[in-house]
């Protein structure tokens, strides 16, 4: 498949990009291109102009600052995958990165692009939701911080304005006794999720769950939070019973669709399974001893 013709713009600063966004007629932003290029090739998107962010060096970072993990709009999946910082402190991110697509795509695709794409099957949005993350957007009126909770509207549709771009994603740096994890069920390597669950829990000194975040992949029209499950966990001590209940509540709150790769009831069930598995990993990473009973 071949794209329709378009103009290619390569701003070198965010300011330049924002003014192009304003000046051009319905331009499309190009980051890693790993979702956009296929859409252009299939002519599902036919923009007159493409604003390519790849030369904006100021967007290429992944760092902790001011109590936040900050992910610049040009940070690629591979950057997360290979970061020692992530490996040490952000279990869910470290889990998710190698599960996204395949090595070549991870070399190019960006976390921000994935979030902007707002494909409910995308993995990063769930992680962002579980961590109470935020989307930092820049437009003609300056910067705006959108809580992840308010970002996703419909498949491929977000609250980002037409002339706004994402500059950064961020989540709070981990607290003591925090643990997070991501589990994903896919049909084969490199495939999108049939279902996925990102969880983050924070324990208080007694070992009681103080904060819980759960984001689900591929089981609703957007990535969603499993709020009932989160509420059920808060105030509980991590236990198989508590996790089981949370898994069940998360499944109840999901609305997957049946398709050739699984009917809705199975996917709901998997939300339960994946959520429990992720909670067990998160508990371990929060410092608890989790004994696995396998035979």
């Amino acid at each position, binding site marked *: 498949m071949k794209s329709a013709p*378009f103009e290619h713009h390569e701003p070198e600063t965010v300011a330049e990009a924002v003014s192009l966004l304003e000046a051009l007629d319905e331009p499309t932003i190009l980051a890693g291109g790993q979702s956009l*290029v296929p859409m252009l090739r299939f002519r599902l998107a036919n923009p007159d102009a493409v604003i390519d962010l*790849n030369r904006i060096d100021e967007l290429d*970072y*992944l760092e902790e600052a001011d109590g936040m993990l900050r992910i610049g709009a040009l940070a690629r999946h591979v950057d997360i995958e290979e970061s*020692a*910082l992530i490996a040490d402190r952000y279990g869910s991110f470290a889990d998710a990165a190698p599960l996204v697509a395949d*090595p*070549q795509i991870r*070399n190019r695709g960006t976390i921000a692009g994935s979030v902007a794409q707002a494909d409910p099957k995308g993995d990063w949005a769930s992680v962002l939701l579980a961590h109470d993350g935020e989307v930092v957007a820049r437009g003609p009126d300056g910067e705006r911080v959108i809580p992840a909770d308010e970002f996703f509207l419909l498949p491929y549709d977000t609250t980002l304005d037409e002339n706004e771009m994402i500059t950064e994603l961020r989540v709070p740096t981990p607290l003591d006794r925090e643990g997070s994890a991501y589990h994903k069920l896919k049909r084969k390597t490199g495939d999108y999720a049939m279902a996925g669950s990102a969880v983050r829990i924070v324990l208080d000194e007694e070992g009681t769950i103080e904060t819980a975040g759960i984001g689900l992949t591929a089981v609703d029209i957007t990535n969603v939070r499993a709020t009932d499950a989160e509420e059920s966990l808060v105030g509980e001590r991590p236990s198989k019973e508590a996790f089981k209940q949370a898994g069940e509540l998360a499944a109840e709150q999901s609305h997957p669709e049946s398709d050739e790769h699984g009917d809705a009831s199975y996917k709901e069930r998997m939300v339960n399974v994946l959520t429990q598995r992720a909670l067990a990993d998160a508990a371990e990473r929060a410092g608890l001893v989790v004994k696995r009973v396998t035979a």
Partner: protein
Amino acid sequence: MSTKDITLTVNGETHSLTVEPRMLLIHAIREELDLTGSHIGCDTGNCGACTVVKDGEAIKSCLTFAVQADGSEIETVEGMEDHPDADGGLHPIQEGFEQEHGLQCGYCTPGMIMAGKAILDENPNPTEEEIREGISGNLCRCTGYQNIVKSIQYASDKLDENGEVAAADGGRAETDGGFTCGVENCCGGTGFDHTGGDNE
């Protein structure tokens, strides 16, 4: 119809091209530069037949426009014999495919070879698991992958041997950074450092 002038350095040779922005990098390489080793096997970015190494990283050249590669260094299978590791003959990865029967129809092979190169550039001694992960973006319908894995292992062993010989000769050791092939972040030269990943 708008066009853009771009410069691509492919296998060490610099080319100036005028292309439509919509032209995929794979088409520029195959059609404009006549380097038909890299192939196209799908329209969704799944098969990896189009894998090339761009600025030291394996990418799918069907998921990038040629204009995006302006100014970059690209390696394709056609450059492998000129690589210093090839020592005037086949590159050890190519040799591995031949010795271990890592190909049948050969269509996926150039992409596999480039994916293999990216694996070994980053990790000269990968485990079988790491090799399988490293080529998981490349589909092969003929071989069942087992011999492709062996081919890359063969190259890893061979490069090790060569490295040892070279080191003993006072030549370059694998990681001393004394050698670069001219491509940034390639050949163990400057290392593989992304965006503050290890700034702890």
